[in-house]
């Protein structure tokens, strides 16, 4: 499949999931793959009725880099990842366009971090992106670090050889107190 969206669900995310879907489906019709990290049967059925379900194996559940593992299993040539705390407000088509760069990856900075690093809640990538491979390599090397995924993004931020697209905050609006009416995605970290 050419284009699709992925998100990750764990037990307790049911309510957030419904809100995410409501917002997403108002503006988008791309197929969705829900990565199941231990949701109940009822939610599984619901997900299957809306899209496809990718179940994380029990062995993998303890790893610190589930998200990165899921990226490698994406059934799409071009994937948009959004965390469930994203309030999707517009058509996400431009994000696919943004992944059309040398290393096939588009991500924004974490505007709340004290040092420069990428924010892993929203990104787009093409199958085979070296960014994903490097992210995974970092996580494997640092698998004992519970924050390997996040630290991997910090590490990659300093890689001068990667040629990716930096997303403007329009695609990942992290500031809750002032919100642009033009943003495609608001983050709701409290949800």
């Amino acid at each position: 499949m050419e284009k699709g969206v992925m998100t990750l669900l764990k037990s307790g995310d049911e309510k957030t999931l419904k809100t995410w879907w409501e917002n997403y489906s108002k503006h988008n019709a791309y197929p969705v793959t829900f990565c199941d990290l231990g949701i109940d049967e009822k939610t599984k059925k619901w997900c299957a009725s809306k899209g496809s379900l990718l179940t994380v194996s029990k062995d993998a559940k303890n790893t610190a880099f589930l998200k990165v593992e899921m990226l490698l299993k994406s059934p799409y040539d071009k994937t948009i990842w959004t965390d469930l705390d994203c309030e999707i407000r517009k058509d996400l088509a431009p994000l696919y366009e943004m992944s059309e760069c040398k290393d096939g990856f588009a991500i924004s900075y974490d505007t709340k971090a004290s040092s420069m690093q990428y924010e892993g809640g929203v990104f787009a990538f093409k199958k085979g992106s070296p960014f994903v491979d490097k992210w995974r390599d970092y996580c494997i090397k640092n698998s004992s670090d519970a924050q390997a995924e996040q630290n991997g993004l910090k590490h990659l931020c300093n890689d001068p050889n990667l040629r990716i697209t930096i997303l403007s905050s329009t695609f990942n609006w992290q500031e809750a107190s002032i919100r642009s009416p033009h943003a495609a995605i608001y983050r709701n970290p409290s949800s």
Partner: protein
Amino acid sequence: MKKEEKKDQAPLLSWSEKGSGNGVVVAANGTQEWLLKWWWDHYSKKSDFPVTFFDLGMSKSARNFCESKGSVRSFTFPKGMIKTKEAISQKNIESWENTYPGDVWVGREQWFTKPFILLKSPYETTVWMDLDCEVLKPIDPLFDYANGGDGFSILQFHKDNANYYNTGVIVAKHGSKVPLKWAEQTQKRNEHHFGDETVLMEMLEHENLKITPHPLPYNCPTILPMHEDAVIRHYIGAQGKIQILRNL
């Protein structure tokens, strides 16, 4: 009453005084001033952000027109800054003259002004538009694309398995390092470059600049099919100008 032009005291290679608000900047010399009315007619139907027109050698009547629509500032390069034909390699002379159907040596004097004009913008966030851009819808969302990264947004697009950039529409935050470096490189290396865009491409290749591209609808070039959500149609090159003329 004739409007007095505010003199910009800032050196060529630095940002002028901190500006305010969002605004649009365009520029024209005597060759391109015929596009001013066409541009304004489309722009003003869809957007009302203040406009600053940079006078690169317009006629008196064109300048009067601009003064009736917004503010006008003059810009000229210091003599000899943009290298003339005599300083260019024979290989580049042949290549450039074959690439551009008009007078490339007059064209270069204007194309290279882009980063310098951005530095002189009176706005906090500036949208630069080439005059061959037809504004089809309100441009309000465009200003947000310079948020994040180095405060600088241009079009990045993919065609025939290659990535391209286009600077027909630019969004720049006051103080962004990109226009500053772009201007510096233009001053240092313009004899190696056809125009402003190749200077910027070279920089993007060699320096880790964090531009935040805007999507295709905000600069939909006529070399690509019309985008259904197009906000700005960019009539690129000689063919594009012919299309504009046909519709005048």
